């Protein structure tokens, strides 16, 4: 059975045999940092390419197909161009915040990568409060957006940033509630333990209808949290030209652009972990034979497969639905999603206590 765990373990053993313990740690930290940044860049490129191709399919077009085979180097060319564009700062901006904002958004996105288990035994930081850490850190990105909107000295940017602030503060709640309802079932905040608890079936199937409701609410809330259509109030191209990044150009804009896609990846990865068992293959209760066959598919394939399925779902939303208005957006959260998710959490608690789930 192919597993990344074996590779990492043997690499660690080899390093330990040639270097001292401190050095091993330093080298591994360096390697992980490089790997994280590389993953960040590759994910960004892949997701942007995927978005353009998905859009093209939905819109009965072909999408990029001239740069490299099937146009796969299109996004590389775009990124390279953005890096090489003139570093641009408009007059009268708050220089410090203007420069800082993209990095805040970017670093937040990178920090959340840490506790996500990409495959069996392949995780940057196995932390016992993983879910809590993620929900805590992901709220920071809104500060970056607010900074960008304020510092740009542009009314469109400011409007976009304020919208984004109101939106993320609201939707954090129901996203949190949806996550909590799974935590109630597992009784652990550790992402690995959550995955282990799904060894005999994913929570979306085991958790009855409340898990399904929690999943739907989670998807809606994270779509809003990542500022994606139909909740892309912060950018709202036809209303606010570019929203909070109207005044950003070149590399700084590219950071926002990439961070948006990384955020999508992260929320989908968490969704896949909580509801679809992360890297856990598709297992059905006690069907040993079936489960064994499923185990032959490497765990990272499962993880990325599920994550990309959810990403596709979110992209599908974007290219189909019209945008909500800001007051409708807040109404949806405070009048519908939040009460439903609270009730759902209650229901889930009852199920967990009574042991009604599978």
């Amino acid at each position: 059975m192919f597993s990344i765990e074996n590779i990492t373990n043997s690499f660690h053993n080899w390093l330990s045999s040639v270097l001292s313990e401190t050095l091993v740690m330093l080298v591994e930290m360096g390697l992980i940092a490089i790997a994280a940044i590389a993953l960040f860049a590759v994910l960004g490129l892949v997701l942007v390419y995927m978005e353009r191709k998905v859009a093209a399919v939905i819109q009965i077009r072909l999408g990029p197909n001239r740069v490299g085979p099937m146009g796969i180097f299109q996004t590389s060319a775009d990124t390279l161009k953005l890096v090489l564009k003139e570093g641009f700062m408009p007059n009268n901006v708050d220089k410090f915040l203007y420069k800082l904002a993209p990095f805040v958004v970017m670093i937040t996105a990178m920090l959340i990568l840490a506790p996500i288990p990409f495959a069996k035994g392949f995780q940057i930081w196995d932390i016992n409060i993983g879910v809590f850490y993620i929900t805590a850190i992901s709220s920071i990105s809104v500060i970056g957006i607010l900074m960008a909107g304020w510092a740009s000295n542009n009314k469109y940017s400011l409007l976009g940033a304020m919208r984004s602030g109101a939106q993320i503060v609201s939707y954090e709640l129901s996203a949190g509630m949806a996550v909590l309802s799974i935590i109630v079932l597992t009784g652990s905040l550790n992402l690995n333990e959550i995955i282990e608890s799904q060894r005999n079936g994913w929570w979306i199937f085991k958790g009855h209808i409340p898990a399904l409701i929690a999943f739907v609410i989670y998807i809606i809330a994270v779509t809003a949290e990542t500022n994606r259509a139909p909740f892309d109030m912060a950018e709202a191209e036809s209303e606010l030209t570019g929203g909070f990044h109207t005044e950003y150009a070149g590399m700084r804009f590219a950071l926002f652009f990439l961070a948006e896609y990384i955020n999508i990846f992260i929320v989908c990865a968490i969704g896949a972990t909580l509801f679809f068992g992360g890297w856990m293959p598709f297992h059905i209760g006690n069907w040993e034979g079936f489960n064994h066959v499923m185990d032959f598919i490497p765990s990272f394939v499962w993880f990325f497969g599920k994550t990309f399925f959810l990403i596709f779902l979110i992209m599908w939303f974007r290219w189909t639905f019209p945008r909500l208005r800001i007051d409708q957006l807040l109404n949806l959260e405070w009048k519908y999603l939040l009460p439903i998710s609270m009730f759902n959490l209650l229901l889930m608690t009852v199920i967990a206590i009574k042991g009604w789930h599978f």
Partner: protein
Amino acid sequence: MDVKVTPPSAPFPGSVQEIPGGGIVLSTLDDVINWARSNSLWPLVFGTSCCAIEMMSAASAKYDFSRFGFEVARATPRQADVIIIAGTIVNKMAPVLKRLFDQMPDPKYVIAMGACATSGGPFFYNTYSVVKGADHVIPVDVYVAGCPPRPEALLHALITLQEKIKSGLTRDQIRTQFAENGK
């Protein structure tokens, strides 16, 4: 392709100039940079009149300029690379166009789409408010004929612009080549 006369010192934007004695590494790097720039031309959403509809047609499924990577139309000039002047420019619009052009970060390119943007077109004579050619306001890299041009013509213009960027030459050099070879 017609190349308009511009001040000889103005370099073609975006092309990295080869320094005398520049090594093979630098030249390859130039090629890579020009490749990236030419393949990632994000247009500004800017249409004043009829040609804008043909620009939309070029974006639509039948002509689909997303194949070349042009579909990332940006609403804000800060993030755009190429401004397609689709339609007539009038005196009131000219300062705005200039401002939009100034707001774009280098390297930036301009395509004058249609007769109006090229020369004033059907509105050349007896009009008091039409700018007779957008090149009175900003430098234009590629001119497209037609009133309005077909989407294919716009695609051809964009490909021409790509070739122009890939060649890595200055406007001067292109003009000299044009004078010598006729192409």
